[in-house]
């Protein structure tokens, strides 16, 4: 099985690549500045907005993993970038998209979107609203076989991989306690477990056209 990983040098992307190789998958790692010494990894430096390069990078892949981040400096560009990625998936004829999307658009136990809570100051809400807007890019992609994983409210590099995770498919965050509003305490996942969930879905497809929330 061949997977194409877009955003392969990021914190999550590099774990997806490493775990995929560990599972015996073939990997085409894509990043604007890809430089891989691993002979099993085909590195392609495709800029996000280069349609032909992206289409070429996705062609022949059994699944495309989309883990490139929203651009901090120009977050308003993120939905458009994602749309162009999905257009390239469609044109490449890649059968599946396994993505990660920020939890800003996820629902809290109180029924509001996380981005609207007081966890976000007005100074940073601008960025997370762009992440929330990107959810609609997937909602509109009704002709593609996509799964968008939504990490817990807190996903941090120093959290160790536990080899386990729970999922929800109703756009709510996965939390350990639904009654509290301190989501960053009760809704957590490690990068490693997030990569594991994405690869489990690639190897054993269970979802399609749905947001799958992840948490411990």
């Amino acid at each position, binding site marked *: 099985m061949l997977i194409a990983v877009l955003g392969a040098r990021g914190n999550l992307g590099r774990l997806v690549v490493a775990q995929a190789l560990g599972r015996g998958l073939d990997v085409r790692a894509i990043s604007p500045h890809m430089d891989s010494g691993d002979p099993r990894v085909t590195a392609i430096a495709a800029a996000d907005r280069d349609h032909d390069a992206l289409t070429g990078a996705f062609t022949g892949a059994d699944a495309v993993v989309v883990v490139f981040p929203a651009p*901090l*400096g120009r977050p308003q560009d993120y939905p458009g970038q994602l749309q162009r990625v999905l257009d390239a998936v469609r044109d490449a004829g890649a059968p599946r998209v396994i993505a990660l999307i920020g939890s800003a658009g996820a629902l809290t136990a109180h029924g509001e979107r996380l981005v609207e*809570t*007081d*966890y976000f*100051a*007005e*100074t*940073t809400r*601008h*960025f997370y609203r762009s992440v929330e807007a990107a959810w609609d890019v997937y909602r509109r992609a009704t002709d593609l076989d996509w799964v968008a994983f939504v990490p817990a409210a807190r996903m941090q590099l*120093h959290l160790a991989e536990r080899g386990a995770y729970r999922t929800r498919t109703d756009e709510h965050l996965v939390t350990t306690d639904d009654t*509290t*509003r*301190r989501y*960053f*305490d009760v809704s957590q996942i490690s990068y490693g477990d997030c990569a594991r969930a994405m690869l489990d879905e690639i190897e054993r497809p269970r979802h399609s056209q749905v947001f799958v929330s992840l948490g411990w």
Partner: protein
Amino acid sequence: MDVTVIGATGRIGKRVARMLAERGHDVRGVNRRPDRAAVVLAGSGVRTCTADTGDEASLAPALAGADTAVLTTAPTREDPSAYLTQTASVLRAVRHAGVTRLVAVSSYVALRAPDGRTVLEAEPAHPYFRPIEEVYPAQAAMFRAETGLDWLLVAPAAELYPYGEVTRGYRVARDVLVVTDPASPNFKETSVLSMEDLAAFITDEVEHPARHRQLVTLAY
């Protein structure tokens, strides 16, 4: 007491304004957008006033007759340095109104890390956030240069979360971030406070001024 909260619809300002009103004070809540104030402060007993921190004259009626002012606004992504111009305007308006005490919210990035370096030296900000974060040391310098006012700058913990309880179980320090694990490479994550306790501290300092002309910080 008669208290004016500037930035009264923000995450911190609305908590402070509501808490002061609950304790029976006469609270004026200042923000730019009356539609937002009507929603956020509905039923709180806070009188809403529309003003722009960059427009000194617009602040005058909101500050007239107040015993203490609380400033809880924050810089914006779009124009972080405007915050310093606005702070200067607020300082002038407070002085001209004859308000003697000003309690203002700062940030942990204005503090020193446990190892003695500044927080910004110990952990440089991401380029996206740097323009916002660099505003706070400059804000502190503006207050330190202020001779006429009884001011207090309050820098909350690095990890400030909403929807907590008022416990008053925090430690208060001057100039250096309060953390539970100073040796940790993630020391910032061990500096934690709820917005409810931050509001309680500010409310206490409005009612019973105990600290003057200093930058303080609090965390559990």
